[in-house]
């Protein structure tokens, strides 16, 4: 089977679902003839035309607001926010309307749309292009937040997000867009929204991460394994909200130890929620405090300093080692 990168995985998923479901349409800035600035929507315009692949005015709030109207009327819009740093202009539409329409109307009107946005650091970009703010969306009831980590899960998860009955914020770790290739087996890779993926089973410690940090986490786990012989269990969260509490708790009850790795800044992030969940449901099984590896609570620096702030393989390695030896 041919190996592909994450951009191709996402692009193929869009081509496939648009071919099979004519209620799906793509809209955003430069998604049409240009194929998106990262080329995720490449070729869609040529194949499906302007009506289904819409280049919009540069107006994030109206893009999402119009998508809400389309979704209420029975379409399935897939919106691209060109960079997550531009998405805050549509935040009030997501928080104020998309997330609430089902509740507001007691289920009469629903908003099945997907907001795709590239996010995260490590690509030497300009200001506003490197942050990891998944927690903004995850803290909003009624919104699902999905973050793929690889070509194998990106396409299948995007398809699942488009088919989901709720608004889904689909955050694409752009550092992973083209950095590696994998075979994507649609039959074998049944990824679904709300389900974490146990990447590797083990008994000594649970390592939880998501997005671009998964690659670094796996590298660190390999290093720890070869050094110590410990058998870590590795969980790729994939859905930030609603969180797969079951998979986390089951694993931590088994291993008694846990490290959470997040690219986002430390305070109030998903790692904090994961630790709270463990505290609620698996505290008595713990043999060590749960550690988190995160960025510091600073404004994301420009790329000259970025490397000092993003969690590194060695940070993860150290956290695992300390937790195992506690």
């Amino acid at each position, binding site marked *: 089977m041919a190996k592909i990168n994450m951009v191709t995985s996402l692009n193929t998923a869009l081509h496939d679902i648009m071919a099979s479901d004519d209620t799906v349409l793509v809209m955003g800035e430069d998604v049409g003839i240009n194929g998106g600035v990262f080329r995720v929507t490449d070729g869609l315009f040529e194949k499906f035309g302007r009506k289904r692949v819409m280049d919009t005015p540069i107006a994030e709030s109206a893009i999402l607001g119009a998508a809400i*109207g*389309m979704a209420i009327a029975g379409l399935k819009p897939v919106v691209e926010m060109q960079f997550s740093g531009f998405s805050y202009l549509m935040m009030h539409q997501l928080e104020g309307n998309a997330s609430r329409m089902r509740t507001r*109307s007691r289920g009469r009107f629903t908003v099945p749309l997907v907001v795709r946005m590239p996010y995260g650091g490590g690509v030497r970009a300009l200001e506003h292009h490197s942050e990891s703010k998944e927690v903004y969306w995850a803290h909003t009831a009624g919104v699902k937040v999905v973050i793929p980590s690889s070509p194998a899960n990106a396409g299948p998860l995007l398809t699942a997000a488009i088919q989901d009955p709720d608004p889904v914020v689909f955050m694409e770790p752009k550092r992973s867009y083209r950095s590696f290739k994998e075979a994507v087996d649609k039959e074998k890779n049944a990824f679904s929204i709300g389900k974490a993926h146990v990447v590797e089973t083990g008994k000594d410690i649970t390592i939880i991460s998501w997005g671009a940090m998964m690659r670094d986490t796996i590298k660190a786990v390999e290093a720890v394994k070869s050094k110590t012989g410990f058998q870590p269990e590795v969980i790729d969260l994939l859905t930030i909200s609603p969180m797969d*509490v079951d998979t986390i708790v089951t694993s931590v009850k088994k291993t008694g130890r846990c490290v959470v790795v997040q690219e986002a800044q430390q305070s109030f992030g998903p790692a904090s929620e994961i630790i709270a969940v463990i505290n609620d449901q698996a505290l008595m099984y713990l043999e060590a405090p749960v550690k988190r590896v995160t960025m510091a609570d600073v404004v994301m620096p420009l790329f000259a300093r970025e490397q000092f702030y993003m969690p590194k393989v060695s940070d993860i390695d150290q956290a695992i080692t300390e937790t195992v030896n506690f």
Partner: protein
Amino acid sequence: MPLKTIDDFSIKQLHILDENGKVDSDLEPDLSKDDLKKLYLAMTLSRMADARMLNLQRQGRLGTIPVNKGQEAASCAPILALKETDWFVGSYRELGARLMRGETLENSLLLFNGWEEGNVNENNDRTLPISIVLASQLPHAVGLAYASQYKGEKDTVVLAIFGDGATSEGDFHEALNFAAVLNAPVIFLCQNNQYAISTPLKIQTKSRTIAQKALAYGIPGIQVDGNDALSVYQAVKEAVDRARADEGPTLIEAVTFRMLMHTTADDPTRYRSDEEVTAWEAKDPLVRFKAYLMEKGIWDEDLQKQLEEDCKAQIDAAVQAFESREPFAPDVPFDHVFGTKEAVIEAQRTRFLARLGKEKENGQN
């Protein structure tokens, strides 16, 4: 090279019925007697229900309500130009419009007493719930209109209502631009009632009219006497016809006045004079419409008395039904977070219900 004028712009203002109910017969719309009566009934019911709700609120029997008095023509008349299959996307001060769309009075009583159940219009599935954040509903209207274009529903248009304050919001400008670019069948109707809570129009905009903002987006704009139901109807009808003919969106500014407070939590004496309010009393939309109907020979004081009795009975019945209703289940919000059953939500529901059960046992609720 001398300066050239590359375009000329102008804004028209439409008045059909003057303050005394005298009609300009050249401009008089072709409305049936039944439609005229239907419109007058809705305006009267809206006026009387608004007064009763204000009363209920003052008695502590209803939560905070936005008050509608004075805006009945701008609210009710546009709906007469719509079909049931068109979409209505409103703000929060269009009781009359909602009644015309088949929403019950009990809906308003429920909603403004804190029950989302009041947002469900059982009689029309193309009426969106009220929108509180100013202008945020306008992009939705554009999306609904695009969906009708997309699905080839040639006959479906969208009416969006908002206030003068909303025209300062980014969403207003983004939505007009978006609709114009897509040639979407949307009618943007601004109820310019002169005040956004305490902020008068002159602080909201330096434009002489709100209608002229349409010109910047390349779409038609018109100002109408918003207290004249015929002018409002006519302007909306023409915009609806254009939208149905694939000629794109229109902005209509209906100039009206909010006769009372913004909401029951507001005290308008802090920011405007009695004289200003009194001057607008002479322009009352109901008074002039009644005079028009009487002049046409289709209305008289007996019918008026009957109408007021009917409206009162209808309002009494709605209040009675609302106040004798069993409360809805407290855990309904858990049903509507997501369209899928999620373990995180269900676990929280279980805890919530257990807590309520315990409180009940202890006589706490």
